[in-house]
């Protein structure tokens, strides 16, 4: 290939810029961290708190991100309506949890109450996801890549404003569970019960999902379909059924995440799904989209960076109100990671157009 001098110069400039950018970010991170730690504004308990808060938030992101990643793995499509599926799960859980609290069941058997609420939330979100898949996605299976994306954006709006119609624009408050108030003490460090329960529940859900995908026949079929749909069909796999199962599993995870999220933050309304949806999508990409462990890692990393990042990097270098820029830090980190690893933390290198 013949390259002119000008082109070589451009290449040089571009590479110089990129390295400059990388070095700048690394310097900010290192300098900020150093200054913050030297300033000693926060105690070590507070640092542990930051991390714990991040893990709890991150595990919810991870649960939602699973749905994105699984659907992407199989259909190569961004299911933009996934955030709303998550929100519908939170609403489903709300009604059953309120009812259970009302009849006193929740106080007597908090564990069962929680499990029932989660199951119901998962059921609601799964049903809605299947409906969306049937109406808005299935007919578009052979269409160009961006067409289902737009249809998904449409579904997202439609679901949001359907819920607004059903339940109004106001806030719905989750009943508070006595059993989840307060802290448990581990090695002298108090950690909130809600966060432990949420994190454990998320880990359990993820393990179940991971086992399904890795160790069952249907999981094997899912992996086969995500490798190559046509060949999988030739092997006698009912591709359609596998796709539906994938949607259902992803939605169930989102529904569970919805209930856990609402337990932590106590309120739900029709717009609840939007931001976590985008964040989880980011987490999925961060970990390497299409990759299930990647979604988990991505979610956790995102959660922790959002929680720790502003205090650690920005506080001491003179940026006021660092938490206002929490999302900006998360996105800059995303770009950084993509700079070093263009297909995410655990993603494979994409050689063809994804």
């Amino acid at each position, binding site marked *: 290939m013949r390259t002119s001098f000008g082109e070589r110069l451009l290449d040089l400039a571009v590479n110089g810029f990129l390295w400059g950018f990388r070095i700048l970010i690394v310097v900010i991170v290192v300098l900020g961290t150093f200054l913050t730690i030297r300033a000693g504004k926060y105690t070590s308990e507070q640092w542990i708190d930051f991390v714990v808060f991040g893990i709890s938030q991150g595990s919810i992101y991870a649960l939602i991100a699973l749905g994105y990643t699984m659907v992407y793995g199989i259909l190569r499509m961004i299911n933009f309506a996934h955030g709303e599926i998550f929100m519908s799960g939170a609403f489903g859980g709300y009604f059953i949890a309120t009812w259970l609290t009302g009849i006193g069941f929740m106080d007597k058997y908090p564990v069962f109450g929680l499990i029932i609420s989660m199951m119901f939330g998962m059921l609601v979100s799964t049903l809605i996801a299947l409906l969306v898949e049937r109406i808005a996605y299935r007919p578009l299976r052979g*269409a160009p890549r961006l067409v289902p994306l737009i249809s998904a954006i449409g579904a997202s709006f439609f679901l949001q404003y359907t819920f607004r119609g059903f339940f109004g624009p106001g806030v719905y408050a989750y009943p508070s569970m006595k059993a989840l108030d307060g802290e448990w003490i581990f090695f002298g460090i108090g950690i909130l019960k809600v966060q432990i329960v949420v994190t454990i529940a998320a880990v359990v859900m993820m393990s179940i999902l991971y086992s399904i995908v890795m160790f069952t026949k249907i999981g094997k079929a899912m992996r086969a379909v995500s490798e190559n749909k046509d060949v999988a069909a030739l092997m006698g796999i009912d591709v359609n059924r596998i796709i539906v199962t994938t949607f259902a599993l992803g939605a169930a995870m989102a529904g569970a995440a919805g209930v856990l999220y609402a337990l932590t933050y106590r309120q739900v309304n029709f717009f609840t799904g939007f931001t976590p949806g985008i964040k989880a999508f980011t987490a999925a990409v961060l970990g390497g989209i299409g990759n299930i462990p990647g979604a988990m890692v991505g979610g956790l990393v995102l959660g922790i960076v959002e929680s720790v990042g502003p205090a650690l990097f920005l506080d001491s270098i003179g940026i006021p109100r660092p938490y206002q820029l929490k999302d900006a830090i998360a996105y800059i980190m995303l770009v950084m990671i993509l700079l070093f690893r263009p297909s995410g933390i655990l993603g494979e290198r994409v050689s063809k157009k994804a």
Partner: protein
Amino acid sequence: MMIKKENLIWIAIKTGLLSGVIAIFLCLIGMIEVFSKRDVIEHIITLGDFILLVSAVSAGIIAARAASNPDQEKQPLKNYLAGALAGLTTGILIIAFIGLSQTINLRSVFLSASPSLFKLLTFKGGTSWIWIYPSIGLASGLLGTTLFLLPEKFRQPITRAIFITFLMALFSGLFRVIMINRAGSIAKLAKYLFGQTGLTLSGATIFFVAIIAISMFWTARSKNLQEGFSRIPKAGQTSLRVALYVLLAYVVIMLPQVSGPFIAQVVVIVSLYALMGLGLNITLGFAGLLDLGFVAFFAVGAYTVGLLTSYGIFGLQHIPFWVAVPIAVLVAMMFGAFLGLPVLGVRGDYLAIATLGFGEIVRLLAGSDFLAPFFGGPQGIIGIQKPCLGTLGEFLKVDVPRICNGIEFGGPKEIYYLAVASAILVAFIALRLQKSRLGRAWMAIREDEDVAEALGINLIQTKLLAYMLGAAFAGLGGAIFTVLVGSIFATSMQLIVSINVVALIIVGGMGSIPGVIVGAIALIGMPELLREVSEYRFLFYGAALIMMMLAKPEGLWPSQATLRELHHEDPGEDLDVASSQAKA
């Protein structure tokens, strides 16, 4: 293939159930109650009634279609049976819903299941509804079947007429206001055709009949007209085309004068989105780089103009708009390169999310307290000098606009010309770019990056140019937006703007320049006009996006390349799409 009798009944019932569920859904989201305050035809049929009726009639049509067998002659009896059954089922389902609501309190879950809704649905109490719904359902089903059985040349005009009359009713407030503002006999005509909340009976009849007549005339004559056109000699054809363009130009120039500022404002907003769409069309449509943070460049253009022209405390310079715009475009271009650089090696959906991040970063920084001393933070930049065709007076003091000696582009009616001219100019540039060497290089990248590189296309240079030019167009849009609103707030730069721009490109037809314009009109203009139905605006928007993608995945005005691609695809998959569409 024979359709068995049980099958037929089941299909009809299923269709009826589906339409009944849709009707109940519309009740539960509160739409029927809200729309019952709007009329289609004054004092006769409200918008709410109309929607319920349409659901029953469509059930009739669909069931009747399912019952007919293309291989055999028509069997009207069978069709009627199916249609009636479907309509009846719809009616019965609604009764069941009302009955249910009287035994259990639906409102403990669904806020919209209010007493006033059921008062409306039960015709202010009483029990008459028990027989009214099935009979209306039955009648609608039969009506639907009749519509289906009508020969094509009648059916099409009638459905078209119903649809357009409905649209006229929906927008009757708009038309009425415009016409009444003209005073004189036009105002009287307006009062004759349009009531306060919908069409008058006479208005509806006139529209209905007129559209049937025009439509039938067109179906009968369109062939002759086309033949006539092609028989005209070449020179004549050209002059006819020129005449058409002159007419178009006249309409465009006169529109704001006649329609008033609101339509002008909507056109300006549509043009701004068209500008952004044309920009994104370069990065996404031509070069295939999915950018979900396009609003960043819009913001850069807006803030640059704001900072350079504002007479408020954040105004850095007080230069005229016309000087600020080229600077804004340049700054946006540089920003395009700056944001494009880090993601040069990132592909596909990774790129989408990285750019989404850029859009969010720009918005967050612009609205943050960190940069508030420069960009105003949450308090925004206010006091932006309007463009002035002529000389601007001296800058006297902060917070006082400068005097314009000449024509001031103060309101939407004036900015309209600025926005439309920019959109046309940019569309022209985009058209030239598409056909240029660069345009072909972009398309090569879109098809396959690796092959393009192997062909000797410099990926870095070509991609960066796509980002820069796309950003330039969006920056221009931002600049005009700033003077339209007169203030800038970071809250205007939401992610939703970027999403809308991507959606309008795909809905219009990816890579197609007229498609961008059509997409902007459909996705931005329509919701703006429908501000009145505020809380259901986005519900319609979402439903419309889904339906457009199902019906026309290639877009409303696809480019030739897309069409070719669609036909090149594996025929098996194509068939699959077609059959599943038919099922849906």
